């Protein structure tokens, strides 16, 4: 059985009177591809921010490979092997595409003294095999020298995921990576991610289940800050609470309709 890589125990986060994440116990195993879905305001992104260290939890603990990382900064968690993307793209608009990738590559592969860090030039790293391969994989060669602010949303999303993948994390965490994209762009991103299934632990937060149903091995449904279902796609889909809360299907009414029929 594969090892547990991320585990949360009773994680809670409140914003004033609003309980955004309510005592969530969650675990993610090595090389598992898991999805978290839920309607708007379900607490998915807040939970994501808690796991990646952007919010400190009010209660509960977060473990990474058995190590308590609850009080670690996002940067320390990245160093341990967790890399995330953001709902709104986290690329740097005033840098070229290639420079965004070089920043990630250098951080992931550096053996830097302060002097090396200060004097290392971007030019030296621009033709690294891995960077060139990443540009090809994500179909970004034609825009490699373009400023990110001049890219389309689809290209920005591809770049952001490319940056996350280039960092070679142990856990790749994607926060609504398909939001606002055209179907053709979604296909490209799912295809690239699909190639990593079985080779990497991936946690993907999505609003729409249709985007991730063929991709994830396990699904977790959140509603009003709580986990209301956890398991396979079919299992979650048939869960009465999921039907009521996520699909907003009135199960009782549906039952009486069936009886009448």
């Amino acid at each position: 059985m594969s090892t547990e890589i991320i585990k949360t125990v009773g994680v809670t986060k409140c914003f004033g009177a609003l309980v955004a994440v309510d005592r969530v116990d969650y675990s993610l195993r090595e090389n598992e591809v898991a999805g978290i879905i839920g309607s708007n305001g379900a607490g998915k992104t807040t939970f994501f921010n808690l796991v990646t260290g952007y919010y400190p939890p009010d209660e509960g603990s977060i473990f990474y490979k058995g190590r308590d990382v609850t009080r670690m900064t996002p940067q320390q968690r990245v160093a341990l092997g967790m890399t995330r993307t953001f709902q709104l793209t986290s690329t740097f608009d005033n840098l070229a595409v290639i420079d965004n990738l070089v920043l990630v590559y250098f951080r992931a592969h550096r053996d830097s003294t302060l002097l090396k860090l200060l004097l290392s030039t971007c030019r030296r790293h621009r033709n690294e095999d891995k960077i060139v391969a990443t540009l090809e994989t994500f179909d970004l060669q034609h825009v490699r020298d373009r400023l990110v602010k001049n890219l389309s949303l689809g290209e920005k999303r591809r770049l952001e995921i490319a940056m996350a993948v280039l960092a070679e994390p142990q856990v790749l965490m994607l926060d609504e990576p398909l939001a606002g994209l055209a179907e053709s762009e979604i296909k490209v991103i799912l295809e690239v991610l699909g190639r990593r299934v079985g080779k990497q632990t991936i946690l993907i937060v999505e609003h729409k289940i249709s985007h991730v149903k063929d991709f994830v091995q396990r699904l977790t449904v959140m509603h009003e800050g709580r986990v209301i279902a956890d398991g396979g796609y079919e299992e979650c889909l048939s869960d009465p609470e999921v039907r009521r809360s996520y699909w907003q299907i009135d199960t009782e009414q549906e039952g009486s309709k069936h009886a009448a029929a």
Partner: protein
Amino acid sequence: MSAQLLTSGVIFGLSIGSIFFLMAIGLSLCFGLMRIISLDQLLYYSVGAYLTYSLTLVTGNVWLGVLGGVVVAGIVSFAVERLIFRRIYERELTFSMITSFGVLIGGIGVIKFFWGVVPRPVPVPLMAQIDIIGTEVPVYRLIVVAIAFLVYAGIWLFLNRTITGKAIRAGIENVEHVEGLGINVSRLFTITFIIAGALSGLAGGLHAPLIMVDPSMGLEVLAFVFMVVIIGGLGSIKGTLISAFIVGQVVSLGSLIYAPLAQMAPFAIMLLILLVKPTGLYGSPLLKR
């Protein structure tokens, strides 16, 4: 106004603009990346000037004094960043402003303790003059302008060619996302703070031979440096350079036309620019923490 007077006014404006640029660049970078208003940069300016004074007395070489001033200002800024600013980055902007003002006032006290309150003269390292359109212009002032341009080029190359520079630019856009890449943001903050402090020290060292060095010299240029940063746009190097020269010229030529204009006109220009472009000449509305 005669051509000679105008030429010497322009050269004076360029040299004072260069000093403003060297001081403002630190303030601008510190705000752009760390979102702090680092008034203590004015202390490093005084430290640079006093070290130049003392080392010139000991060695007899002003340039060596300037170099010493740069190094010591960098060291002092490093210590202030580690001991004070590191603890307040997360606090509100006004908190950093008040804290840095406290550091400035405290630092002025230390300067008074060591050097006293009597203004000190520093000799001009180069007495030569050069003829420009029939006007004798001090070569030292031209050297100050050249050094400012060299610093601009160096900072530009650093920010646009090195990985650390790109990381700083990325941080000016969004610190949180830089942290998300696993880049050591705290180290970037320290590097930026030292660069800022050292450049303020350089400004003090270069300005020392042109003025009398006194403990409150930083406070005297405070308003001008602020104007330069605001007109240029927070976080913009190019904007800082251009606005430093605008303010320098307005101060210099304004005083030739009507003395009180030198103090008043830069404010009028700042208000005018802010009315047309609230983010300053080159400030980005994208700046966010």
